[in-house]
């Protein structure tokens, strides 16, 4: 081998090393950027899909999370942000997300009588078991289940069942837990029926257990709802007490359930998200609708409608006062007052509609 050959080999090696190092640095930056970009795009797409469901009420499937590590998705209630690794996305809508490979996205509503609050539930395959220990609470269970997804004909399922002591009632629907519509059909007429406390040990990890009882003393597992005919009461998650005043409070907790991370109990965090957004939106809605009622009152030619619009405006002002307190949803008396005023405002508005002076909400 002559000097020239050796020179060629050495120069070739140096140049190749330079090229390889350059390419590796370029690809590692580019590759890392691509993964984060992809995560950001998936979160953005989820936000858009869920917002479309919220706006139009048409349920949707979301399968993009299977392209990333969805188990790393978590939720920060203080900044109202979904976080995965170094990528995050702030939620501006009431979207109750439980991460999974494939999700079914459904819109639920809480009808206040004078306004409707819409929210979205995004769930993977889910099984929810009710343990109804108060025979008068079936109406409440029906109200909750009615706002949950109906997944008949879909590949992603939300199923419901009942637990009585050590028996898991799974034989409603061909030896499987029922989907929403069949479950509702099966439990109509159960009024008065009382079950004994469910032994949680008979249920596997995949089930979400919801106790419904007139008292939650001594119940520290799952979710426990202290039943109330007025729709306002206490709800317990993982032993922690909170106030519920509508079906959305309860559903937020059911969707998040007791999964826990450094941000706390997931169900509690979704409950906080719901109430932060609800308070802002309901306050704004009450102010707008109150001003609307007053402006229409001044234009009405029928005296009765004029007076009814004035009354509606006053009731909505009282509702605005309650909602101005950021912590109102944590206090049971404020929650009861809010509920009562909402019912009164709803009744007044229905009277206006019956007189032909306005359209239904």
């Amino acid at each position, binding site marked *: 081998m002559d000097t020239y050959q050796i020179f060629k080999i050495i120069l070739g090696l140096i140049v190749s090393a*330079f090229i390889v190092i350059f390419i590796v640095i370029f690809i590692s930056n580019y590759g890392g950027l691509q993964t984060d970009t992809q995560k950001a795009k998936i979160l953005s797409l989820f936000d858009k899909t869920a917002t479309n469901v919220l706006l139009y009420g048409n349920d949707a499937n979301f399968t993009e999370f299977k392209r990333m590590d969805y188990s790393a998705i978590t939720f920060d209630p203080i900044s109202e942000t979904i976080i995965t690794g170094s990528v995050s996305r702030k939620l501006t809508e009431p979207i109750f997300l439980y991460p999974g490979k494939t999700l079914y996205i459904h819109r639920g509503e809480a009808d206040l009588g004078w306004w409707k609050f819409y929210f979205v539930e995004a769930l993977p395959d889910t099984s929810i078991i009710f343990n109804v220990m108060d025979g008068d609470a079936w109406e409440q269970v029906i109200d909750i289940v009615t706002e949950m997804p109906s997944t008949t004909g879909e590949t992603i399922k939300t199923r419901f069942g009942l637990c009585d002591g050590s028996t898991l009632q799974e034989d409603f629907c061909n030896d499987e837990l029922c989907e929403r519509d069949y479950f509702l059909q099966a439990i109509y007429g159960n009024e008065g029926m009382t079950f004994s406390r469910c032994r949680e040990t008979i249920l596997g990890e995949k089930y979400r257990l919801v106790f419904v009882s007139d008292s939650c003393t001594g119940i520290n597992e799952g979710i426990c709802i202290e039943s109330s005919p007025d729709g306002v009461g206490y709800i317990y998650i993982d032993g922690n007490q909170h106030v519920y005043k509508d079906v959305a409070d309860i559903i937020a907790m059911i969707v998040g359930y007791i999964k826990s991370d450094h941000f706390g109990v997931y169900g509690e965090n979704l409950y906080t998200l719901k109430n932060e957004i609800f308070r802002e939106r309901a306050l704004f*809605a009450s102010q707008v609708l109150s001003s609307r009622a007053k402006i229409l009152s001044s234009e009405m030619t029928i005296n009765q409608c004029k007076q009814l619009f004035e009354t509606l405006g006053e009731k909505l002002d009282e509702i605005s006062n309650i909602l101005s307190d950021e912590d109102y949803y944590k206090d049971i008396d404020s929650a009861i007052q809010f509920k009562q005023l909402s019912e009164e405002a709803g009744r007044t508005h229905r009277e206006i509609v019956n007189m032909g002076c306005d*359209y239904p909400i």
Partner: protein
Amino acid sequence: MKGQMELMEYLFLTVFVILIIIVLMFFITGWQVTQSGIERTKEVSDEVTFLMKKFSTMDYFVKEDGVFDDAKLTVLSSMENVCEELRPILGSNWFATITVFDESGSIKVCTESNYPDCNHWSFCKKENRDFVSRKLPVNIYRNTNRIGDSIFAKNDIGVLEVGFYEI
């Protein structure tokens, strides 16, 4: 001389190969930048369309999808801080206008004092700014349309314009 010529040729060839690879790197980076530019333009356009859909379905403004409630619009457009109030839901740097196609032939901006004898509402509109916008045919529900002494609510037709200001 021949040996030196061969060496020079080899060196030139090596330099050219490195140059081609560097040009390729620049090209890929440049292409990515252009793609981001295209994506950004598409994103802005998508955002305007999304804002337009949101605006025409939100119950603060509408009676039903695509049908605005004139009393709600009047109350909202008269609010001093409506852009701030709507920021958590609609973001910032946007504007919207709604105009009714009536027989008056002129624009009359609605306020609480001239309601309902007016035909135009404006939200967060600023002058002398570049913007990207979209228009959409819509209906406007006139709550207190008078015929004689009676009130018969009716649907008028008009146009919604929604846009983002260029930052």
